C-alpha cells in the first residue's frame, strides 16, 4: 500500500517578514493617513493614539462616585449632630446650664433623624437601610457607619425626649434614662463626626484614599465647629466654653488648610484646582481663619455679634468643605493618569 505524500501546506503562522510589513503599513498610515506602497489602503487613519502617555484613549480608569447631594449633606448634618451630643453630655456633667443641655440634646436628636432620612434617601429604597443592619462588618466602614447612625439616632432621640419629660416631671428614673442615653449618644456621636473620613478614605478614589489619615480629624473638627456655631445661633453667645471649642476647631481647620496648601502633591490637585479646589479653599477659609479672627476679636471686645458672624461663617464653611471634598473625589476619579502613574499632562 503506497502512501500518497501530503502536499506541503503553507504555515498560517505569520512570519517575521509579514509582521514587519504590517508594522510598516500601520506606521505609514498613522503618520500620513494613507498607505501608498501596498495594494490596500488603511482606513480610519490617523488612528486615535493609545500610547503610554495617554492611557487607554484617555478613558478614566476609575468610576466616578455616584453620590448625590444627600451624602455630603449627611456628612455635614451627622457631624454637627454627633458633636452636639458630646457637648450636651459634657455640659450636663460639668455645668448647670440647663438650656444649653436641652438645645444641644435637641440638635443631636434632630440631626440624627435628618441623617437617617438623608441616608435612606440616598439608598433609594427605604428597606435597604434595614438590609445594612443584617450583619456587623468591622471591615466595612459603611456598615460600621450604618450601625453607628442607628444607635446614635435612637439614643440621641431618647435623651432629648427624656430631657423634655424631666422638665415637667423631675424624677430619678428619668434622670438615669437621660444620662445613659446621652452618654450612648455622645459615644456614638464621636464616631459620627469622624468615621465619614474613614468611609471615603477606604475607597479607590486617590484623593480620598491617600488622605485617610487627615480626613477623620478634619471632619471631626468641622463637625464640632458647626455644632458650636448652631448653638451660638440659638442664643448661647455667653458660654465661654463654646467660644473656646470654636477657637480650637477653627485653629485646627487653619492648620489643616495650611497643610493641604503646602503639600503640593499631584494626588491633592483636585483640592486646589477647578470647581472642587475653589469649594475646598473657600470652605477652608470660611471655617478656619475667618471665624478664628472673629472669635479672637470677640475675646478682646466682648461684642456678641462677632460670635454670630463667626458662627455663620463656620457653618457655611463646614458645609462647603464636605461638598468640596466629594467634588474633589469626582475630579480625582476622572484623572486616569494618577493610578496609571503617568506623567502629568503638559498643558
Amino acid at each position: 500500500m503506497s502512501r500518497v505524500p501530503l502536499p506541503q501546506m503553507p504555515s498560517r503562522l505569520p512570519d517575521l517578514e509579514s509582521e514587519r510589513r504590517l508594522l510598516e503599513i500601520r506606521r505609514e498610515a498613522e503618520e500620513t493617513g494613507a498607505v501608498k506602497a501596498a495594494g490596500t489602503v488603511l482606513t480610519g487613519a490617523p488612528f486615535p493614539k493609545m500610547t503610554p502617555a495617554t492611557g487607554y484613549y484617555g478613558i478614566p480608569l476609575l468610576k466616578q462616585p455616584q453620590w448625590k447631594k444627600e451624602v455630603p449633606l449627611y456628612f455635614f448634618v451627622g457631624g454637627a449632630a454627633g458633636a452636639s451630643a458630646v457637648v450636651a453630655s459634657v455640659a450636663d456633667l460639668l455645668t448647670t446650664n440647663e438650656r444649653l443641655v436641652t438645645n444641644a440634646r435637641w440638635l443631636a436628636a434632630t440631626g440624627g433623624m435628618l441623617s437617617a432620612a438623608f441616608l435612606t434617601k440616598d439608598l433609594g429604597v427605604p428597606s435597604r437601610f434595614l438590609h445594612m443592619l443584617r450583619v456587623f462588618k468591622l471591615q466595612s466602614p459603611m456598615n460600621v457607619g450604618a450601625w453607628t447612625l442607628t444607635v446614635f439616632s435612637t439614643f440621641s432621640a431618647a435623651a432629648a425626649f427624656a430631657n423634655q419629660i424631666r422638665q415637667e416631671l423631675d424624677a430619678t428614673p428619668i434622670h438615669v434614662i437621660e444620662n445613659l442615653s446621652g452618654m450612648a449618644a455622645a459615644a456614638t456621636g464621636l464616631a459620627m463626626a469622624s468615621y465619614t473620613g474613614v468611609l471615603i478614605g477606604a475607597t479607590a478614589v486617590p484623593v480620598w484614599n491617600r488622605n485617610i489619615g487627615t480626613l477623620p480629624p478634619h471632619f471631626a473638627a468641622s463637625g464640632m465647629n458647626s455644632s458650636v456655631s448652631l448653638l451660638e445661633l440659638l442664643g448661647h453667645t455667653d458660654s465661654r466654653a463654646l467660644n473656646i471649642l470654636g477657637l480650637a476647631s477653627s485653629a485646627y481647620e487653619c492648620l489643616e488648610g495650611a497643610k493641604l496648601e503646602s503639600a503640593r502633591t499631584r494626588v491633592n490637585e483636585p483640592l486646589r484646582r477647578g470647581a472642587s479646589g475653589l469649594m475646598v479653599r473657600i470652605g477652608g477659609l470660611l471655617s478656619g481663619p475667618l471665624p478664628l479672627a472673629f472669635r479672637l476679636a470677640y475675646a478682646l471686645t466682648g461684642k456678641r455679634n462677632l460670635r454670630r458672624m463667626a458662627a455663620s461663617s463656620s457653618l457655611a464653611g463646614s458645609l462647603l468643605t464636605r461638598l468640596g471634598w466629594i467634588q474633589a473625589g469626582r475630579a480625582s476619579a476622572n484623572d486616569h493618569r494618577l493610578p496609571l502613574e503617568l506623567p502629568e499632562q503638559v498643558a
Partner: protein
Amino acid sequence: MLRELLLSWPVIKQIQTGGDGTGPEAMSQRTLTLRPRTAETRVARSICPYCGVGCGQLIFHKDNKLISIEGDPESPISRGRLCPKGADSYELLTHPQRELKVKYRRPFASDWEDLELETAMDMIAERVWESRATTFVEQKDGQTLMQTKAIGHLGGATLDNEENYLIKKLFTGGLEKNERDGRAFKCTFCSDRQQAGLIPACAKACPTESIKFGDLQELRSEAQARIKELNAQGIQDAVIYDPLDTSVKGIHAFFLVRGDPAMYNLPPRPEVPTRYLKKGWTSAALAAGAMLGATLLAFLGEKR
C-alpha cells in the same frame, strides 16, 4: 491578427520561454489578471464579536460595502487565526437569510409576524417580570428557596455561544435559578467536567488556545515561553501583566500585551482601597479622643 492569435496560444509562449508547461506560460489572460478580492480595498481593524477572547479581525471594505473579514496577523491574542465561527463573520453579516426583523407567532396563530425590536423587548421584559413576580417562591417548608419554575428555555446541541451565554447570565445570575439553595453561579470552572478528569469546556473549545486552564505556575512559564517566541519574531514590546507584588496579590488572571500595560488602563501597581483602613480608624479614634478631651477641658473652665 494571426500572429496575436498564435502568441496567445500557451505552447508558443512555452517554446519562447522554455518553461515546463506549468508556469506563467500556461496561464490564460483572465488568470493573469486575477486579483484577490481584498485588493484595492480599505481595511479597518476590529475585534471578533463572538466570545470574550477578542481575536483580531481585519475588515476589508470598498465603496461602503463589506468585501471580506480575515484574521489579523498583528493581534497578539490570535496571531491571525480565527475559529470557524469568527472566520465566517462575513456570512454572519451578509447572508441573504439573515433575519433582520424580530419574528413573533401569536398564541394559536399559524403564521409569523414582524415586530419592532423595541416592542419585542418590552414584551419579553414584561412577561419575564410578570412570571417571576407571580411565581417566585422564597420559602418552602421553612427553608429558603428563592426560585421560579415558571420560566424555561428550550435548547439543543446547536445552541451557539451567545444563546448559552444569555441562558447562563439571565437564568442563573439574573433570575436566581439554582433550585436547591438559591445561590447563583456564573462559572463553576466546569466542576462536573473536572471531576471526570476533563478541563473546562471553554478552554477545551477555544481554537486559538487563548483560554487556558491548568497549574498557575505552568501557565506562567508558558506565558514566558510565548514572550520569548514573540521576541524571536522581532516583537520586542510584548510583556506579561501580572501584578503580584502589591496589596491585591495578583488579579486572578494575567494578560500578554504589547507595549506599556498602562495603554490598556492596567495600573502598574493596583492596590486594594482598604489598605490604609487601620490608619484611618486610628486617626478617627485619635480625633474622637481629642474632641472629647477638648470639650471636657472647655467646659471645666465654665462657671458652674
